[in-house]
């Protein structure tokens, strides 16, 4: 018997029409969709962000994390390579590692003391040959036939990704050159972690991932930004969408010659409060550390990774589905190993912009919940994602939802919807 009613042909997943610019609300509500995502996306041909190499620098260092809802262990072996495996004892299924991370020679399941090495290979079965000649495992039992599921692991610029699928292409091919270059642009030297926070979002994971890709909302919802001219749609900037639609980069740069935009004046946006000034502007003091004038770069990798540079505030975010209407957002704030004390202070101050209390990000923690609550009785209705047309091409402007459409294009391909 299978629990996957979809593949049994008894589909309870409604039909999605041809148009990928109209998103049916059942996609955030349907439990069969949610189960299918685990199989088709998280365990499918995708690269899932696991951790930073900087978090596991030495042999024996490990972290526990998730691929979708599956618990996994990421460890650095004695040979210096990184290994990842399902955090599930092959005996009775208990978690093998219980801590967030640490350093270990090996892992022993607490339940019956089955033992695994850093690669996730089963190395010991307690009382395998019985006690006093009595009991024990049957003779045909071979430990090598009972390893937890292993992940393929790849690293890129200090980021560690894992996949349960053998068909996923190399990370470079998966991302495409344009996205790859913009990861390399930020993570061009060794990083260090300066803080880690978890934010619980009261909404389906896709609503947050869409929000990350949605360049249209940035200056409308987050008015702190616009007030200080960090992110106006009329600034120079644009959107890159990977060929698959799955990944995106949005960026903007301050244009010192920028004139007051007629569209903004006409709209008289709530976001333009001319009389709003900071008392302590050291919050926004920054340096052009990448030497290209780009003050903002938001980059997403399907299905749940974000690399963010807002001035000198750099962070990676991991998006994990927990329940249909509950998502875990893991923030890792980073600096570079060679940061001066002054540079570090600048990053600490600019970190006020980001995270669960961020001047330009706190709204994102709530807005997905507003959608989730708003659509409670609208499973048969659709949202309209048609700013900038219906296509998924890149653009040299940001009043567009092209990268959101790109996400759905990829999502439908993975899911077969």
């Amino acid at each position, binding site marked *: 018997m299978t629990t996957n009613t979809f593949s049994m042909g008894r589909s309870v997943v409604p039909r999605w029409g041809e148009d990928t610019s109209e998103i049916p609300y059942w996609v955030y509500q349907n439990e069969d969709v949610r189960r299918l995502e685990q199989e088709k996306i998280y365990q499918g041909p995708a690269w899932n962000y696991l951790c930073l190499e900087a978090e596991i620098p030495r042999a024996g260092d490990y972290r526990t994390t998730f691929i979708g809802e599956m618990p996994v262990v990421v460890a650095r072996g004695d040979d210096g390579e990184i290994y990842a495996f399902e955090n599930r004892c092959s005996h009775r299924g208990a978690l093998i590692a219980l801590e*967030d991370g640490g350093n270990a020679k090996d892992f022993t399941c607490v339940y019956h003391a089955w033992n695994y090495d850093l690669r996730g290979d089963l190395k010991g079965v307690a009382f395998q040959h019985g006690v006093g000649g009595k009991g024990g495992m049957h003779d045909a039992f071979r430990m090598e036939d009972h390893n937890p599921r292993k992940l393929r692991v790849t690293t890129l610029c200090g980021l560690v990704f894992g996949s349960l699928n053998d068909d996923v292409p190399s990370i470079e091919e998966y991302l495409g050159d344009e996205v790859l270059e913009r990861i390399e642009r930020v993570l061009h030297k060794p990083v260090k*972690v*300066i*803080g*880690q*926070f*978890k*934010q*619980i*979002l*009261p909404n389906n994971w896709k609503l947050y991932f869409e929000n990350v890709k949605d360049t249209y909302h940035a200056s409308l*919802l987050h*008015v*702190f930004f616009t*007030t200080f001219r960090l992110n106006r749609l009329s600034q120079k900037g644009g959107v890159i969408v990977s060929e698959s639609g799955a990944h995106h980069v949005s960026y903007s740069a301050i244009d010192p010659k920028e004139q007051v935009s007629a569209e903004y004046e006409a709209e008289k946006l709530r976001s333009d*409060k001319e009389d*709003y000034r*900071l*008392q*302590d502007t*050291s*919050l926004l003091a920054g340096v052009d550390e990448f030497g290209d004038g780009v003050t903002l770069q938001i980059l997403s990798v399907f299905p749940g990774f974000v690399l963010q540079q807002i001035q000198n505030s750099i962070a990676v975010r991991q998006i994990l589905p927990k329940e249909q209407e509950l998502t*875990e957002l893991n923030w890792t*704030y980073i600096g570079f190993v060679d940061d001066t004390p002054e540079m*570090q*202070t600048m*990053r*600490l*101050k600019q*970190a*006020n912009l980001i*995270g*669960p*209390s961020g*001047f330009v990000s*706190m*709204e994102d*923690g*709530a807005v997905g*919940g507003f959608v989730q609550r708003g659509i409670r009785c609208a499973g048969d209705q659709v949202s309209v994602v048609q700013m900038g047309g219906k296509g998924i091409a890149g653009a040299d402007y940001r009043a567009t939802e092209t990268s959101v459409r790109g996400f759905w294009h990829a999502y439908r391909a993975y899911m077969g919807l």
Partner: protein
Amino acid sequence: MKTTVFEQINRFNTAYAACIDDDRLESWPDFFADRCLYKVTTYDNHHNNMPAGLIYADSKAMLHDRISALREANIYERQRYRHIMGMPLVQSESNDELVSESAFQVTRIMRGGKMDLFAIGKYLDEFQRDGETLKLKKRIVVCDSISIDTLLAIPL
């Protein structure tokens, strides 16, 4: 009548909590010295010497800016806090300085009536003393849980 250090800190913390819980946020920076550090972090970050905070303000002016951002710029659903303050554990005292820590608990009350235990933790404090008047030179808010539900708008 001369009050004890214990009473002074209790009185300070009770007034601090009332200021936030009664939505008199514009007065909240007055609990701090001009040169100060206010940081909201978590037990794990504090324990692992991670310097970043959820909120990081190293001047009284930045605290004012935090409040004007909440009033003018940031969007969040209507909500209130109720602080329950623990007794201070005084660690050191001199003529011009007090070092102490106090536990706190914050219930968040949302529009519509939902109440959650939103934050629990301790304040690690350094006070500047001027007679019986205290001002915070440093308040590190160490939340016991690493996770924040939805968002942290109003300061703790």
